[in-house]
């Protein structure tokens, strides 16, 4: 016979796990709301900067600025945006798998690429596999500000200008909705596919178009990275929320099953006791 106390213990431990997952789900859903707000607050900035960059790039064609010109690719950099903590479903694993697959396809030796990692899980993954991780940021806050990633964004752009690598790709989970996040690859540098807007007015440049590009392009590239991070954070919270909701549901199911088992066992014990008593009474007559 199944041990009653054992089942009771399992029910209790499942219940306390469920409480934790439930709490994590609620925390994540409120964080998701904040992250979505952050992403929304960022939109006007991004639109504006895209607008201006487009207008200037259209005005000063073939400026020869290093960030606008593609050069022969000897070294590629991958900026991977992961999370610091796990328990977020497939959030990290899907992105890491994608990056790994891309690297395997495109490169034969480890000298051909470098990794920039955001988030502990991503960093540990690449360090453990002996990839060349040249820069990483861990323990990012849940609601990152631009100041938090300025350093790595500036480094990433700076190293491109210095020629440490000739291409910069960015991998992150794009937030589509609370239940769907898509791993996205985006080429950040060189900025070859700037949408040139023809609608905006022709600008005067002070002191010159080139001088403005000098300031504007790094700021633009940095903001692209920041935008991806905000997007990634929203995805992380959404993904964790879904994972935790599933865990909570599973726990409920498990508890239901166990309760049924427990009640059956209890009923069996009672029935047996009655049978024994009745048997004993019959024997006395």
């Amino acid at each position, binding site marked *: 016979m199944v041990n009653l106390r054992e089942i009771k213990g399992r029910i209790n431990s499942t219940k306390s796990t469920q409480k934790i997952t439930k709490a994590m789900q609620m925390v994540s859903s409120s964080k998701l709301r904040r992250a979505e707000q*952050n992403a929304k*607050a*960022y939109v006007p900035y991004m639109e504006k900067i895209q607008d201006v960059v487009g207008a200037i790039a259209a005005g000063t064609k073939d400026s020869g600025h290093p960030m606008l010109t593609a050069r022969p690719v000897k070294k590629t950099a991958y900026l991977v945006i992961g999370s610091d903590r796990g328990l977020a479903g497939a959030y990290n694993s899907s992105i890491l798998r994608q990056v790994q697959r891309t690297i395997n396809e495109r490169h034969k030796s480890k000298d051909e690429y470098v990794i920039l990692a955001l988030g502990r899980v991503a960093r540990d993954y690449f360090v453990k596999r002996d990839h060349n991780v040249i820069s990483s940021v861990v323990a990012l806050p849940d609601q990152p500000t*631009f100041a938090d990633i300025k350093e790595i964004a500036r480094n990433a752009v700076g190293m491109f200008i210095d020629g440490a690598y000739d291409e910069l790709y960015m991998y992150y989970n794009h937030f589509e909705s609370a239940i769907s996040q898509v791993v996205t690859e985006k080429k950040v540098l060189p900025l070859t596919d700037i949408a040139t807007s023809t609608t905006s007015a022709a600008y005067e*440049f*002070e*002191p010159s178009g080139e001088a403005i590009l000098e300031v*504007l392009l790094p700021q633009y590239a940095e903001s692209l990275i920041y935008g991806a991070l905000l997007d990634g954070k929203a995805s992380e919270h959404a993904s964790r929320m879904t994972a935790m909701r599933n865990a909570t549901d599973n726990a409920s199911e498990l508890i239901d099953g166990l309760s049924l088992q427990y009640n059956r066992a209890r009923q069996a014990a009672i029935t047996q006791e009655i049978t024994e008593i009745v048997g004993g009474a019959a024997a006395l007559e």
Partner: protein
Amino acid sequence: MKTVTVSIVTPDGPVYDSEVTMVVAKTVSGEMGVLPGHIPMVAPLAISAVKLKKQDGSTDYVAVSGGFIEIRPEKVSILAPSAEAAASIDLARAKEALKRAEGRLEGKKDDIDFKRAELALKRALNRINVQEGNI
């Protein structure tokens, strides 16, 4: 009096949005006053205070850490990595940053770190000036 719409946006969201009669900003090539109906223009900004004169005669100050200004006849936009209106500047934090930057400037002679510390110093000073209103 004619006015122009000014919006100052940072990656962390909009900081300032208002109708003003004149904008005074310090670009890398010098100070510039912008009145409504200015020709379209773009210029990078220095780490400085932006002065915004309003219709009722009052003046707002916003500290910007670089970025650039985009001018159109009916709208002026300033895009900066960070910007704070005078009222929202944390003076204690700015003073702390100033001290830190000063310490670093004395200690290091390394080129990159020196430049970085210098910029940090400028940003901190700019914030303090804007907050205390001595511009």
